[in-house]
């Protein structure tokens, strides 16, 4: 994928570009908001990673201008401001996801993958499938290999999110934000316990596991 990183901190930008390159992406870099806006307008990027506080033109205004042009490129906002209000502001300005500094690189990568997936607007699916695991979103049923699996509503939403992001790394923070709508770090391993419960329901009686733990990052559902 081709990405544009708009970040005024040179060290942070280099770190990001290096990491993205190692993950197989191409990343351009702009040091301030105005340059970033020009570059975003002149080239076709798959994803923009925009710091919120930038010299010359702040990140949110950059996104607003881009959206005013009708440019719908997914934007991941990076910010040191992490309160709910700050997030809402970021999303209102047209950002697609919001990541609070400091973040783990794995977290950033997982979110970029999720955004890239979103770029191809899927037709609204009523059925999801990963390997022999199938989910019917209308009937709210799940079965694997023809065998019905009973899930609690919350487990259903958790699995739905994992299936929609099948093949991608999904972090604990992402799950907490998208499935539970919470924006804090629990001190206990609440998410892990939910995931392991879900795992015992969908993987336990089957030979091939679908739900994998990615060390230092999160989880991945993959056939």
């Amino acid at each position, binding site marked *: 994928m081709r990405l544009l990183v708009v970040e005024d901190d040179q060290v942070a930008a280099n770190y990001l570009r290096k990491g993205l390159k190692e993950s197989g992406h191409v990343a351009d870099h702009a040091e301030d908001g105005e340059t970033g806006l020009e570059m975003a307008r002149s080239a076709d990027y798959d994803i923009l990673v925009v710091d919120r506080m930038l010299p010359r033109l702040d990140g949110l205004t950059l996104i607003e201008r881009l959206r005013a042009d009708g440019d719908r490129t997914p934007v991941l906002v990076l910010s040191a401001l992490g*309160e*709910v*209000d700050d997030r809402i502001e970021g999303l209102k300005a047209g950002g697609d996801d919001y990541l609070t500094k400091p973040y783990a690189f794995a977290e950033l990568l997982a979110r970029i993958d999720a955004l890239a997936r979103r770029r191809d607007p899927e037709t609204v699916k009523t059925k999801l499938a990963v390997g022999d695991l199938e989910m019917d979103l209308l009937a709210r049923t799940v079965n694997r290999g023809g065998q019905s699996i009973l899930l609690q509503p919350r487990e259903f939403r958790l699995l739905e999110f994992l299936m929609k992001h099948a093949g991608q790394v999904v972090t604990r923070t992402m799950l907490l934000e998208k499935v539970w709508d919470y924006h804090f770090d*629990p*001190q206990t391993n*609440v998410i892990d*316990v*939910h995931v392991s*419960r879900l795992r015992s329901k969908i993987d336990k009686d089957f030979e091939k596991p679908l739900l994998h733990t990615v060390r230092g990052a999160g989880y991945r559902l993959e056939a």
Partner: protein
Amino acid sequence: MIRRAPAFVRTTTFRLTVLAAFLFAASSGLILYYVYGATARALRAQTDRVLVSEIEAIGGEYKTGGINGLNKAVSVRSSDAEDFLYVLTYADGRPVSGNLDSLPSSFEPGDKVVLFEYGRQDDEGAIETRAARGLAEEFPGGFILLVGQDVEEDRLVVRRIANEAWTAAGLVLLLGAATGAFLSHRFALRVDALNAVARDVMHGDLERRAPRNNTNDELDTLSANLNEMLDRISRLMASMRSAGDSIAHDLRTPLTRMRNRLEATLASDEDREMVLREVLKEADDLLKTFNAVLRISRLEAGERRSKLVILDPGDVARDLSELYDAVCEDQCIELIVEITGGLQIRGDRAMLSQAFANLLDNAVKYTPAEGAIALRVRRTQQGEAEISITDTGPGIPAEERERAKQRFVRLEKSRNEPGSGLGLSLVQAIADVHGAKFLLDDGPGSTSGDGAGLRAAMVFPKTS
């Protein structure tokens, strides 16, 4: 040097009082002017009535006796009547009879009403000039009869009224200004006292407080509010100072540890990757602590107070219980959820979730296996909504509870557990934003028999 008006003259009170006095003076002047005009009109009308009837009476003589009868009547009345002034003239103005020598100089042919002056002998024989008002009537043959009456007294009355009006207006103005000066001087003194306090505080004397007279008038209320504001500022400064000290102390320790770790690793052949992983984790924890400190500071600064909305605390608790039920089950802790529905509080879901997640984290951390955690939402006997979390862990000794809510305080027993020591102070800050009480009490007793358990509760003010 420029002489400045005394302080009280520059006050709003003074200006307002003087303006009021001016308006009062103007309106009383206006009223008196109206009385003056009405009186003058009434007096004139009365004179005119008398003059008309006199002219009619003399005119009657003309009807019966012709011009000679008229002449006779004028002559007789001139010598008799003291009240009236008469003159009868030919068409060319030569006098025929009457007690006036001629038509007054102000008379023009055709006039009906004539204002004029005439000379009258007073008791000492001196001639005084007096005002008179007359009516003229023309008779066939061009004869002109003028009947007048002395109006000097009336004129004096009217003039006196005019003078009184001016005097009254002047007096009102003076009185108003004096009242203004008096009131504003008192007001200015009190405001000056407040300003003096404000200046002292600006110059660094945060202990100064505004004087109160306990009358609860506007200035007294202002003083009270000012004092409360100063108290709050003092508290904030004190908490900032202590926070600064705690940050310095509590962050320096792990930072120093990290630094020494890295230094030792550089000097030895230790497994570097493992050390790096550990240091990375420590750095992450430090950043988390920083974020928590930042969050508490922003909460204490009251930034989000205006974002509170009416919500059902039961919903907040139910959502959280769904997040924590799995971890409780995993650790063989029974999670009891008891929710009274339909309660209302003014709150912020994200903030409250964070606070109770912190309390649940603590409960899960300290409650031993086979223990229980109860998450309850209920109405207190006073009708306030309360969310509480009770556990069967060791609890916090009564004498340490207040201290436990302060920043960075980690009680002896928890030193070995992970955590920043900011959890309860964050809960306290969130409770403050909601105007809620944050209470720590004994729980039902520890399941492991070494403590009382802990009951942490937030009691919200009524919404109405």
